[in-house]
């Protein structure tokens, strides 16, 4: 019994050590954005409990900023639900991509799905997990660490409020740089590049046509349409099973 316990905690420690380095860029980005969000809530007149609990339960950056404005507007739960579904619709794609990777992970799967924000999904989908590291625990720690960074920073920002003066102009770019690197990694690993170009082009055109506030749903629809329409050449070039 003691032996299996020791082996068990060894597995967990190894997974934590493997997962942590992947979350460092996310720490930098979340610390900055989370503080900003906390300060934003503080300035809007909310105690630190609000950003902290909203970061914990909603755990999706862009919607949390929008939700702050909802709290200041008249009560409209149905439109709040609709906005939440529209803003977060991209997560549907993440789930479809993770269907097989999360299979058979037991209770961890529930938390992995709950905590699947853009950054966590990107790491968990692309990370080359060493063969001697438990996949379930690895993804669990990536998810947990990222959520802790976000919740902690949002709470801290809410507590310190406007006491913090930012001398970090441009630090938010680390999120863009991270997604560029992840895009590039995926690009280098894949045999076909049609879908990568579809993602860039469809979203860019959609952004130009519909503007920064309304481009995500048309972009997703266009991606789905193009990926479906070009299924034959994509599947053939990509050697998909």
């Amino acid at each position, binding site marked *: 019994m003691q032996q299996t316990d020791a082996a068990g905690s060894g597995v967990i420690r190894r997974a934590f050590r493997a997962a942590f380095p992947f979350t460092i860029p996310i720490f930098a980005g979340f610390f900055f954005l989370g503080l900003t969000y906390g300060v934003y809530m503080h300035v809007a007149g909310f105690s630190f409990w609000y950003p902290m609990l909203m970061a914990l339960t909603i755990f999706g950056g862009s919607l949390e900023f929008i939700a702050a404005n909802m709290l200041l507007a008249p009560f409209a739960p149905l439109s*709040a639900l609709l906005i939440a579904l529209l803003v977060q619709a991209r997560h549907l794609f993440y789930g479809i991509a993770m269907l097989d990777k999360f299979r058979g992970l037991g209770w961890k799967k529930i938390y992995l799905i709950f905590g699947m924000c853009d950054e966590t999904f990107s790491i968990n989908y692309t990370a080359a997990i060493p063969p001697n590291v438990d996949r379930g625990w690895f993804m669990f720690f990536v998810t947990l660490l990222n959520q802790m960074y976000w919740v902690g920073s949002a709470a801290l920002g809410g507590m310190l409020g406007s006491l913090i003066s930012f001398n970090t102009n441009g630090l938010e770019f680390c999120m863009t740089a991270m997604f560029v690197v992840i895009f590039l990694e995926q690009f280098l690993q894949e045999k076909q590049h049609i879908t990568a170009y579809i993602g860039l082009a469809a979203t860019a055109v959609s952004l130009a046509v519909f503007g920064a506030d309304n481009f995500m749903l048309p972009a997703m629809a266009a991606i789905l349409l193009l990926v479906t329409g070009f299924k034959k050449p994509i599947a053939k070039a*990509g050697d998909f099973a």
Partner: protein
Amino acid sequence: MTLTQQIITIAVCALGTMATRFLPFLIFSGSKPTPPFIKYLGQALPAAVFGMLVVYCLKDVDFLAAPHGLPEMLAIALTVALHLWRRQMLLSIAGGTVCYMLLVQLIFH
């Protein structure tokens, strides 16, 4: 807004988020194997999604007004070059970010 209304608003936002995260698993994760087309989407979508996220990060950049997204494009070019050279995720991200911070604080401010 009363406290109850605030709690409902936050809960509804959490619920909407969770619906989009859990839905594919609720529909396709049963004992039945995943339909072939959904399996295909699972393989084909990620590259498109990462492209979408890169553009999403740049959504507030105004390419029509000065400096026409120049700091973003330069920093992205350096990030890509660093990554092709060393293929070290942290180095590429740190290099690109420091480059961007220097550009917006010293040159394009």
